[in-house]
């Protein structure tokens, strides 16, 4: 039963995609069909999860094989889905939050001329994301991995009339491609060392295809000979996977695409660039956890990359004016928390934070969308202010989301963040702990700042009349707000001995991640709470009291004290700039390059742009291609002479 049921989960959105591409031409139908099908997926996911829960703990892994995807003498890769506790929570998140965002989009995208296409893309994205989390092998996961990248690209560039959007789309795709290439290499390495790409043993046509994850623990000291060799292999593979994850999950140093990705429609930011796709890297690391665990070197890299990302992005979020960019940097920072948790071995905590973050960040993005919508496409927070009276629902729900993100007791974010910090304490990762703690203080501060700037004070730009958004938008907000408030329940630590329903999630994930729940650390929780409340209040009060100093197009009140540092933060520590300077070198900045290559205006810009970027190589190729046959023959002859010289060298 479960075997075919889980196939329906990704197939429903796929059906939606096909309908929207081939059949539906009308806006309202498109939205309703798309939302209904994703909602159907969600219900099926709930049923499937309940059924999974009904099984004995050690049997909670269903693999449904559709066909043998690649079957050669040496390689057998099934096209199969996997449904286990880890997958189930991811599927619930993707379809649940995804469904709400579909509904929200009904309101948000109303009247857009290409809305049918929008819903088609959105459905395709959900399909691909489900393939990603439900794949029972690396290849299928890669299919989803590329697929979500593609949809993300299409959706970021959805409003392609805006040049920024087109450029951002391309930037996202290209940066992700770096990670994808590493992922592909990791896959090849896994295959050549384990001879398989499926995660777990699975039976296909009466034959057992071995799973590589189950082989990893047995490998130490066996297959490859000496132990260091095993570790070297594990390190190589896991490091490549890590690079893959840094691309998709926007970690340092590949995070630069995510803030730009905010050029897409806001529901897309909520769905793809906060709740689901960007967590794919974390999911993938949790899934392949045995390989990471086998390599201490990679593990510490993972942890530090996470901490570094959390700090860089956290500080960058302090200094943004664009309502969505604050949230984008905040997302990067929170992803850093998750990655750091993985690096410290707290995979369950990472997944916990992934889930809660998925909910409250989606809420915040949708809230910001509601604000943008209600203020007639205003995104600059300097033009806002005092919106709490005009948009009460948005305000209250936003407050819940901000509190959850900041880590205010008892909202969801508090529990999940605390779980990570507690693990750092108990496992003795002190330097990482300090970094993460600081990052969480920053989180509280910038959320306080944002809430103050948007909702408090008085409206600074009189050019619009703010109004509350429609039902299609506010209902999802309320639902998500409730979720953000109570999602912590799913994995409460044992606050007092004999407490019922403690660390449900960790226990649920135990068959996959084999982790024990961390211990609750009251002292740490106290510090964290004081810090969060204090910094949140500080952020709020500083900007509320200085509200008069915030001017449209003006400087931040804090600028007077920090000066250049502020600029540094605003530019996210110039990482992007560094790329532009270092990678593109003296020629041109990546941004300009991409803008030129994909310049809708002209061919010339395109040629010039690429010519400069790849400098003399591409130009050289073109120039050598001079049209003269003599020239071609000469190049040919040079090749001949070189080959023959090499031949003489060998023969001598």
């Amino acid at each position, binding site marked *: 039963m479960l075997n075919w049921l889980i196939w329906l989960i990704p197939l429903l959105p796929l059906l939606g995609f096909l309908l929207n591409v081939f059949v539906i031409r009308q806006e309202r139908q498109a939205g309703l069909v798309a939302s209904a099908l994703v909602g159907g997926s969600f219900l099926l996911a709930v049923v499937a999860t309940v059924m999974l829960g009904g099984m004995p703990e050690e049997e909670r892994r269903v693999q449904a094989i559709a066909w043998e995807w690649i079957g050669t003498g040496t390689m057998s890769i099934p096209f199969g889905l996997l449904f286990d506790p880890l997958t189930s929570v991811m599927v619930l998140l993707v379809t649940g939050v995804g469904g709400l965002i579909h509904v929200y989009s009904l309101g948000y995208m109303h009247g857009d001329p290409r809305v049918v296409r929008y819903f088609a893309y959105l459905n395709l994205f959900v399909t691909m994301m489900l393939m990603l989390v439900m794949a029972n092998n690396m290849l299928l996961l890669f299919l989803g991995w590329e697929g979500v990248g593609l949809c993300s690209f299409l959706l970021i560039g959805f409003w392609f009339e805006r040049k920024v959007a087109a450029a951002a789309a391309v930037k996202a795709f290209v940066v992700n491609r770096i990670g994808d290439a590493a992922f592909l290499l990791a896959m090849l390495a896994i295959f050549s060392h384990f001879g398989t790409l499926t995660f777990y043993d699975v039976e296909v046509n009466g034959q057992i295809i071995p799973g590589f994850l189950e082989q990893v623990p047995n490998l130490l000291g066996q297959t490859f000979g000496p132990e260091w060799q095993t570790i070297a292999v594990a390190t190589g593979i896991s490091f490549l996977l890590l690079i893959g994850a840094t691309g998709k999950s926007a970690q340092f140093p590949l995070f630069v695409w995510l803030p730009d990705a905010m050029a897409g429609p806001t529901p897309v930011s909520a769905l793809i660039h906060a709740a689901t796709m960007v967590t794919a890297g974390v999911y993938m690391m949790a899934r392949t956890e045995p390989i990471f665990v086998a390599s201490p070197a990679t593990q510490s890299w993972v942890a530090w990359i996470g901490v570094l990302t959390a700090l860089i992005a956290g500080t960058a979020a302090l200094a943004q004016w664009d309502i969505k960019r604050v949230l984008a940097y905040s997302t990067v920072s929170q992803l850093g928390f998750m990655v750091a948790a993985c690096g410290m071995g707290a995979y369950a905590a990472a997944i916990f934070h992934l889930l809660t973050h998925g909910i409250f960040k989606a809420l915040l993005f949708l809230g910001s969308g509601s604000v943008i919508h209600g203020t007639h496409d205003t995104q600059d927070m300097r033009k806002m202010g005092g919106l709490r009276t005009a948009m009460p629902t948005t305000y209250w729900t936003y407050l819940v989301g901000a509190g959850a993100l900041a880590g205010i007791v008892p909202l969801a974010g508090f529990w999940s963040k605390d779980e990570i910090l507690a693990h750092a304490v108990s496992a003795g990762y002190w330097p990482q702990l300090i970094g993460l703690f600081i990052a969480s203080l920053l989180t509280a501060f910038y959320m306080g700042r944002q809430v103050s700037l948007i909702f408090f004070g008085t409206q600074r730009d009189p050019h619009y009349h703010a109004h509350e958004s429609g039902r299609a938008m506010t209902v999802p907000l309320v639902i998500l707000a409730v979720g953000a408030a109570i999602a912590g329940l799913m994995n409460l630590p044992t606050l007092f001995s004999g407490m019922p329903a403690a660390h449900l999630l960790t226990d649920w994930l135990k068959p996959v991640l084999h982790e024990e729940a961390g211990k609750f650390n009251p002292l740490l929780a106290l510090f964290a709470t004081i810090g969060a409340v204090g910094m949140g209040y500080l952020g709020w009060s500083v900007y509320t009291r200085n509200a008069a100093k915030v001017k449209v197009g003006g400087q931040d009140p804090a600028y007077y004290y920090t000066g250049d540092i502020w600029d540094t933060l605003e530019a996210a520590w110039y990482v992007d700039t560094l790329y532009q300077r270092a990678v593109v070198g003296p020629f041109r900045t990546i941004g300009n390059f991409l803008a030129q290559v994909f310049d809708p205006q002209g061919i010339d810009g395109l040629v010039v742009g690429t010519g400069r970027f790849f400098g003399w190589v591409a130009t050289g190729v*073109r120039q050598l*291609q*001079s*049209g*003269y*046959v*003599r020239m071609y*023959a*000469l190049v040919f*002859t040079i090749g001949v002479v070189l080959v023959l010289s090499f031949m003489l060298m060998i023969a001598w």
Partner: protein
Amino acid sequence: MVPTTFYVLLSAVLFTIGVLGVLIRRNAIVVFMSVELMLNAANLALVAYARERLAVDGQVLVFFVITVAAAEVAVGLALLVAIFKSKRTADIDEVSMLRG
């Protein structure tokens, strides 16, 4: 009897001259001639080796090469005539619109 090496050496030199002809001449007809020279050089080597091994196979191969050469020349010259009709030149540098 003259050693095979002498013949092969001669053939190598002739072949190189043919290659040079293709590289430096702009008159398409002379370029074709140079290609013919290359093929002839190869033929010479084939015949020389056939003689060394006393195997007629080498000579048979020459037969095929000559045929192919004839076919290539025929098509090439037909093309040249066609191009000449509109371009009024047999300068191979003049057919260089396609580039980049």
